[in-house]
């Protein structure tokens, strides 16, 4: 069992007073300097619905990003098919053309003698498209 934080215990005890104390008593002891904050809170509550819309927007954006990712995978497959090459072949072309940075060259060099799965090679190509190293439109 996880030991509890005494602040959680004490703040839980505040709840009854905060809820039942008359607003006049509560305000006279605690309100000082909070006028502006109360106004912002009141506005936030009135506009709470906008957070729901934002949440919906976030969902839509996530869906779009997922879609983009799958389109990008499909595009890579189509491109490879059109080129008549696999992802390994394209990576070798890019290596020869000097388009890969040192880090990636080292990564690939250390794979020498070991199989780089096609799926992993495609992932590298997707990253290279995002980095602008490989132009899929060309």
């Amino acid at each position, binding site marked *: 069992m*996880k030991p509890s934080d005494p602040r959680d215990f004490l703040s839980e005890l*505040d709840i009854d007073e905060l809820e039942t104390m008359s*607003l006049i008593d509560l305000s006279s002891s605690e*309100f000082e300097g909070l006028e502006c904050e109360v106004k912002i809170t009141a506005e936030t509550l*009135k506009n709470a619905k906008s957070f729901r819309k934002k949440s919906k927007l976030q969902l839509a954006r996530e869906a779009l990003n997922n879609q983009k990712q799958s389109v990008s995978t499909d595009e890579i497959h189509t491109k490879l098919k059109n080129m008549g090459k696999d992802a390994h072949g394209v990576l070798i072309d890019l290596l020869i053309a000097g388009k890969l940075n040192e880090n990636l060259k080292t990564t690939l060099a250390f794979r020498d003698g070991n199989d780089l799965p096609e799926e992993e090679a495609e992932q590298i190509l997707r990253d290279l498209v995002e980095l602008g190293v490989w132009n899929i439109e060309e």
Partner: protein
Amino acid sequence: MTEYSYYSLDELDVIFEQADDELATRLTIAGSKLVKIYKISIPPSELVQEAIVRLYKSKDRRNLPREVSIFRAMYNIMRSIASDEAKRSAEEIYKNSVSIDEEDSNINLTEVVLNETSSDSSELWERIITLFPNDDEVLGFIQATREGYTPAEITKHVCGENNTLYSTIRRRIMRGTSQLRQEIH
């Protein structure tokens, strides 16, 4: 155990649209107290806003139970946000204070921060306990809370399944800690 039913998102829209200034005032004052007790640097209105965001979130959404007042339910969400933020800040401060060498070792940051803050926690628990030198029921209640027992478990193990006794002891603790709570707020 109490079974809860929860407001739908459409119902929440209406509840907040109809919220009066009293709710805004109570929530802001509550937020202000939480900011002080947890020593966090978030304005009270932002705690309210974050609570609302969590109610409308698409993932891991918090719910408002119909059986609990809106103020109480919102306060509990704000309390949990403040508590998390305090832990996050403590981790952040620790992270910034460790040297590069220490960063290299595989230390468990959360554990280190918990150990560092546990001495503060112990001190505060001791302050609470010393307020009730001769009240065994209260001390049993506090000890069980300190060890992480839930209210339901305390009712069962400390109060012999007696809900009234639970409320009575809790009220005694509220009265007894009143000054301490004023001090740390």
